[in-house]
C-alpha cells in the first residue's frame, strides 16, 4: 500500500467514535497526571492497563499513548505556575517559566509551551509517517542475534543515560532480567516458582510497576510536608506576543530536532531532550546570562523537545518492537498482554493498528492544545488539591487496579513487596527504571539468546559475525566507553563554562 492509502486507512480507524473517546480519555488523564505532582505517566499507564483489557488493541495503544504525551503538556503547567515540576521532563521549564510567571507573563509562557509542543509533536508524527515503513522493512531482516544485541543496546543506553551511578544501574538491569525469568520459559518449563501457582506465569508487570513507581513514590513523598507557593491565581493572556514568537521560533525548531533524535535513541526520552535543549539554548543565545530570569527560549525549547521526544519514542516500539524507555516498556508489556507483538510484523500484518495509532496522535495533540490553552483555568483549580487528599486516591487506584487483574491477593502481596523494595532502592541510590525495562524485556532477551545459540549450533560468535548485530554490539561498547571517558570531559567543561 502506498503512503497515501495507509494514511487514509489510519484516518478511518482513528476517527471511529470509540477511538476518539479513548484518545480523549488518554490525553485528559495524561494532562491530569502531568499537572499533579506525585503521579506520572508510567504509574497512570499501569493503573489504566487493566482497564484496557476489554478494549481493542488500537484503542489501548491510543489511550495509553495519549497519557504519555499528554503528561508532557500537563507538567508544564505546574512548572510555570508553582515552580514544582509536574514531570521530570518539565524540570527545566521551572527555571525560566516560573520567572516569567513572577513577572506576570505566565500566560505567554504557557501559551508558547503548548504551541511549541504542538508544533514539535506534529512535525515528529509527520516524520514517523515517512520513516516507519522503511525502518520496519529493515527490521524484518532482523534475526534473533540482531534482536538480542538491539535489546542489550536499549537497556545499556537507558542505564547510561539515566542519573545516578551507572554501575548500580547495570546491577538493577541484571536483577530485573533475572526476576523476569521467573515462571515458564518458552518451552513451558517452570522455574523459580517455589511451587506457587500464581508465579507460573511470572510476576505480574502491573503490580511491579505500580509498586515501584506508585506506592514507593507515595512513601517517599509523604515524608515531606508540601509547600506550594502559587504565583498567580488566574492566568490571563495566553497568547504570546509577536516578539515572543520571533524569539522562540528558532528554539522551537531546534527543540524539535533534539527531541526527535534523543527520543528515538533507546534510553533517551523526554527528560534528556528537555535538558539538552535548555543547555543548547543557553549556549547559543546572545544573552546567556539572562537565562534564569525569564527567557522565553528557555521555555519554548525544552517544552518542544520533550513533546517531540515523547512522540519519537513510539518509533522504536512500533517499528522495531523495542521499547526505548520505561514508559514504552509498560506499553510493550501491555500490548503483550493483549496478545500483540509490536514490531515490523505489526506494521506489515496489521496496518490498521499501526496507522490508526499514528493518525490518532495528530488528533490527540489537537485535543491537548485545546485543553491547555482555553481550558487552562481548569488545571489551575486542579493544582490546588492538597497532597493529603491525593495520595489516598492514588493508593486506592493502585490497590483496585492490581486486584482487578486476577482477583488474587497474591498480586497485592507483590504490589506491597515491590513498593517496599522500590522505597528502599530510592533511599539507597538504586534506580528502578533499568530494573523495570529489563524486566519487561527479559523474555525477549532470553528467547532471542537461546534461538541464536541454537541457530549457530552453540557458537557465541554469531552475535559478532552478523553485521547488524555487530553494529549494535559496537554501539553498546561505544556507550560504555563514552560514559567512562567522554561524559566526564563534557561535564567538567560544562562546569567551567557555566560557572562563569
Amino acid at each position, binding site marked *: 500500500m502506498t503512503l497515501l492509502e495507509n494514511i487514509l486507512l489510519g484516518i478511518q480507524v482513528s476517527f471511529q467514535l470509540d477511538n476518539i473517546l479513548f484518545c480523549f480519555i488518554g490525553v485528559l488523564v495524561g494532562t491530569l497526571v502531568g499537572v499533579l505532582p506525585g503521579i506520572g505517566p508510567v504509574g497512570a499507564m499501569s493503573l489504566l492497563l487493566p482497564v484496557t483489557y476489554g478494549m481493542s488493541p488500537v484503542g489501548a495503544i491510543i489511550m495509553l499513548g495519549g497519557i504519555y504525551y499528554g503528561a508532557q503538556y500537563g507538567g508544564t503547567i505546574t512548572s510555570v505556575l508553582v515552580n514544582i515540576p509536574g514531570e521530570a521532563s518539565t524540570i527545566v521549564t*521551572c527555571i525560566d517559566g516560573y520567572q516569567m510567571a513572577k513577572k506576570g507573563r505566565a500566560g505567554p509562557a504557557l501559551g508558547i509551551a503548548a504551541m511549541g509542543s504542538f508544533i514539535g509533536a506534529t512535525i515528529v508524527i509527520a516524520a514517523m509517517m515517512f520513516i516507519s515503513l522503511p525502518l520496519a522493512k529493515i527490521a524484518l531482516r532482523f534475526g534473533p542475534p540482531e534482536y538480542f544485541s538491539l535489546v542489550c543496546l536499549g537497556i545499556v543506553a537507558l542505564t547510561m543515560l539515566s542519573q545516578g551511578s551507572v554501575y548500580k544501574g547495570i546491577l538493577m538491569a541484571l536483577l530485573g532480567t533475572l526476576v523476569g525469568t521467573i515462571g515458564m520459559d518458552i518451552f513451558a518449563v517452570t522455574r523459580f516458582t517455589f511451587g506457587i501457582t500464581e508465579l507460573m506465569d511470572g510476576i505480574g508487570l502491573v503490580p511491579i510497576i505500580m509498586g515501584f513507581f506508585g506506592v514507593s513514590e*507515595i*512513601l517517599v513523598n509523604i515524608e515531606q510536608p508540601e509547600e506550594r507557593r502559587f504565583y498567580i491565581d488566574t492566568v490571563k493572556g495566553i497568547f504570546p506576543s509577536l516578539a515572543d514568537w520571533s524569539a522562540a521560533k528558532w528554539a522551537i525548531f531546534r527543540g524539535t530536532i533534539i527531541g526527535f533524535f534523543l527520543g528515538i535513541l533507546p534510553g533517551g526520552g523526554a527528560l534528556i531532550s528537555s535538558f539538552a535543549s535548555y543547555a543548547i539554548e543557553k549556549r547559543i543565545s546572545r544573552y546567556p546570562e539572562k537565562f534564569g530570569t525569564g527567557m522565553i527560549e528557555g521555555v519554548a525549547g525544552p517544552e518542544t523537545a520533550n513533546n517531540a521526544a515523547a512522540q519519537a519514542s513510539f518509533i522504536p516500539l512500533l517499528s522495531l518492537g523495542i521499547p526505548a524507555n520505561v514508559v514504552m516498556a509498560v506499553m510493550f508489556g501491555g500490548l503483550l498482554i493483549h496478545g500483540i507483538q509490536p514490531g515490523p510484523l505489526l506494521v506489515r500484518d496489521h496496518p490498521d493498528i499501526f496507522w490508526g495509532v499514528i493518525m490518532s496522535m495528530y488528533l490527540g495533540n489537537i485535543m491537548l492544545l485545546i485543553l491547555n490553552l482555553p481550558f487552562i483555568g481548569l488545571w489551575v483549580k486542579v493544582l490546588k488539591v492538597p497532597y493529603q487528599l491525593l495520595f489516598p486516591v492514588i493508593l486506592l487506584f493502585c490497590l483496585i487496579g492490581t486486584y*482487578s487483574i486476577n482477583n488474587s491477593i497474591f498480586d497485592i502481596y507483590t504490589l506491597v513487596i515491590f513498593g517496599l523494595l522500590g522505597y528502599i532502592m530510592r533511599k539507597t541510590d538504586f534506580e528502578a527504571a533499568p530494573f523495570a525495562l529489563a524486566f519487561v524485556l527479559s523474555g525477549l532477551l532470553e528467547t532471542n539468546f537461546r534461538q541464536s545459540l541454537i541457530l549457530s549450533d552453540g557458537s557465541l560468535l554469531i552475535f559478532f559475525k552478523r553485521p547488524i548485530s555487530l553494529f549494535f554490539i559496537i554501539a553498546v561498547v561505544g556507550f560504555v566507553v563514552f560514559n567512562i571517558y567522554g561524559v566526564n570531559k563534557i561535564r567538567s567543561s560544562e562546569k567551567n563554562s557555566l560557572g562563569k
Partner: protein
Amino acid sequence: MVQGQYNHSFFQPVLWAERDRRRCSILFKDIKMNKFDLLNKIQLLKKNYDFHAGLFLIFISISFVIMSYRVGIGELHNPRAGFFPFCVSILLFVMSFGLLIASIKKNVRSQGENLSDRFNIKTVFLILPVLVMYGVVLDTLGFTITTFLFMVYTVRILGKKRWWVTLLIAFITTQVVHLIFIKWLRCQFPLGIF
C-alpha cells in the same frame, strides 16, 4: 535546587548522585528552595548502604545460580531453561561482589546515622500493612465497605483531616470508584453487603 528525594515523577525516579546535584546547582543556581537545604545536609552525612545492597545481591545471585543449575543448564548448542538465568546470575554475582569490595573501600562519612534517619519506618509501617489488609478483608466485607474503610483510614490517620471531611471524601470516592470499576468497567469484585 530541586532534587533530593523530592521528585514527583514516575518516569524517571530520581535520587541524584552527589555529582549530578552539584552540576545542577551550578546550572540552576537561581532557584532557591529552602526545604532542600536540609535535605542536602542529610545527603552530605549519608551513610553508604552499598555494603548491605551488595550482600543482598550476592545472596540473590547465588540463590539463582543454584536454582538454575538445578533446573538444568544444558549445553551451549542446546541451552535449556536454566541457561540464561545461570549466565545472568553469574554476571550479577560478579558485579555485586565488585560493589561489595568498592563499598568497603569507600569512606563511611557518618557513623552516627540510624536506620530511622534515612528510612521513614513509621510511615512504611502505617501504609504497607493496610494495603495488605485491604486485600485480605475484601473477600469478607465486600468492595464498598472495604474501600470506604480504607479511605477513612488513609485520609484521617495519614492525611490528618477532620472527621467530617474524611467521611465525606471516603463516601464520594467509594461511590465514584464503584461507578468506574464495577458499573462501567464491569470488574468482578466480591460485593458483600452493599
